[in-house]
């Protein structure tokens, strides 16, 4: 019984981090209809930014701050160079533009760091609650994910800028008529989405070893989580991430772990087909 509960708890904790990554993806889609195929590469970049700051002597949790700032700036730059021009074009264009960005990031990353695995080696404490063993790293990453999500909600619902983002998401033309500079808002949104992706990457890096190619796995997980929650719906994405984590944790005791991915992708395609707006409704 404790073992099953352990699995469920582990799933919940990692699911929150998946959720954070998925929010980054779904926010960009919700506001500008762009499926960001550079998402995985950006997650990996977040891992390596953390690695650099950690290497420079910063505690990994303290290093999250500069990673977030870099992530935002990086996202705005990517938007201005690669996305701005084709934002109103057919979906193929934005898919390919962001994929090109992904190739460039991974290419430069491979040249810099090769594709060998890296580790953030810092002191991790292990706690035991009634037979459930959990490391401090897992707890902190889940709490950090929740805090960042709250921060995002505060931004979207309590600040003028955040309300402008929601207005642009709702109807870009109408927002422009109301005098909201939509290009700037889109750039900021892309920056925030990128920042969230990098933060989730950085949190994952405190848990598991990573390579410049690791982002691919989490990109796919983000797709699954955001589609589960309804593309464009940040809350849904968070819950999608939790569901994904719970699936991974809770099916493990009953079937071979390697089947988990099959289940995830079958659910993914199934949700797209039968509940295209996800379990929690589409964009809001």
């Amino acid at each position, binding site marked *: 019984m404790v*073992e*099953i509960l*352990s*699995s469920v708890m*582990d*799933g919940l904790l*990692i699911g929150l981090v998946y959720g954070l990554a998925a929010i980054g993806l779904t926010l960009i889609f919700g506001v500008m209809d762009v499926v960001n195929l550079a998402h995985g590469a950006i997650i990996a970049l977040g891992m390596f930014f953390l690695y650099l700051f950690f290497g420079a002597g910063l505690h990994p949790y303290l290093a999250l701050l500069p990673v977030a700032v870099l992530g935002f700036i990086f996202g705005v730059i990517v938007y201005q160079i690669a996305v701005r021009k084709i934002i109103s074009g057919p979906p193929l264009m934005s898919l390919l533009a962001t994929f090109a960005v992904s190739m460039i990031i991974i290419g430069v990353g*491979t040249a810099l760091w*090769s*594709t*060998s*695995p890296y580790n953030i*080696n810092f002191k*991790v404490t*292990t706690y*035991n609650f009634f037979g459930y*063993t959990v*490391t401090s790293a897992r707890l902190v990453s889940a709490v950090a994910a929740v805090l960042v999500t709250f921060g995002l909600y505060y931004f979207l619902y309590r600040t003028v800028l955040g309300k402008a983002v929601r207005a642009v998401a709702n109807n870009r033309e109408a927002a422009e008529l109301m005098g909201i500079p939509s290009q700037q808002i889109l750039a900021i949104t892309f920056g925030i989405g990128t920042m969230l992706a990098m933060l989730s990457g950085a949190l994952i890096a405190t*848990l*598991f*070893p*990573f*390579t410049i190619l*690791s982002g691919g*796995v989490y990109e796919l997980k983000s797709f699954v989580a955001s589609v589960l929650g309804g593309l464009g719906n940040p809350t849904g994405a968070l819950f999608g991430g939790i569901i994904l984590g719970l699936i*991974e*944790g809770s099916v*493990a*005791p009953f079937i*071979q*772990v*390697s089947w*988990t*991915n099959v289940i995830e992708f079958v659910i993914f395609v199934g949700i797209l087909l039968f509940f295209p707006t996800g379990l929690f409704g589409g964009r809001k």
Partner: protein
Amino acid sequence: MKKKWMFLVLVAIFGMAFAQTVKIGLTVSKTGKFNVESVNQLNGIKLWQKWVNDQGGIAAGGKHYKVELKFYDDESKAQRVQQLYSRLISQDKVDFLISPYSSGLTAKAAIISEQYGKIMVATGAASDSIFKLGYENVFQVYTPASRYLTSTVDMIKAADPSLKKIAVVYEDSKFAKAVATAARDYAKKLGLDVAIFEGYPPSTTDFGPLINKIKASGAGALIGGGHYSDGATFARQLYEQKAPLKMIALLVAPASDEFAQLGDAALGVAAPSQWEPLVKYTQSCGPSPQQFTEMYEKAYGKEPAYRAAGGFAAGLILQKAIMDAGSVDAAKVRAALDNLDITIFFGKIKFSTDPASHGLQLGHEMVQIQWQKKDGKLVKEIVWPLAAKTAKLIYPIH
């Protein structure tokens, strides 16, 4: 003036006579998941090249062949391996091949070597199945998967006859699956209960769900793993999650020096190893284990891992076969390899000539190592077979 000309002509003729080369091609995983192991292996091969060229090359049939290596980066990707081996054969016109690292990549390369009839010495590849496809040109250096973990099971059984349940959790790759399957069957034969037998995808980084499952199963010992990166991660998370295991034996990863970076997580972890610097084999040709170790340490500043030794051994085996054949003619060298039955610093080498398993390694044997603390430092000790041990097995580890 005339004399000078004569001299130059003579030099040219001699030069041509002595400047015979034999070209050996291979791919190396300079990037990707096999990066650590593969570069190790290449170091061994390069050391052999230098060693043999310093002696004037391979002496065969009254000629001396300098060894030339040609290699590309395969990025640890199967699809690159086949393209590059085709290129080595058809464009670079190499005479012989050495395999890439890992069973998966070697299986791919073997097809090409066979399609073009080129001899390939396979090192860093333990899978048996490559040698069950009717190949005639591929020869295995390592102890094959079917015998890889059996002595580990013996060791555990000897240390704790009361142990009932073990878990076998392996990387879902060609090599690890073959090894794990053989180990499971062997463990069952010894009367052990294999509580979990399960593979994980090679890209796994989160072993949490598996570890929870192992804990729930009540298994007392774990054997499994796969290659370096997954194995190191697995060991670290087993330690962090405080898995109550009396013995952990993983493939490949603990046999590398890099494993010491795990710190306390490495302590007590055992591994089967193809070779260790402290082994005591009496070689019939080539350097002794000790000479090889010294040479390697001098060249690279660290102790050789068994993959490096395997790389050197692959070159040495090819060299011996060319010497026996007295030429670089493929058919003659193939026959020489078939007839080979020698002991080198790496151990005994003899290939199967049965058409159903041609090229499979029959001679070589594994040793078991365990990470122990000696004077406050993590060190690898040979703990099995008992005759060769450098330290006593620590059991249970928790």
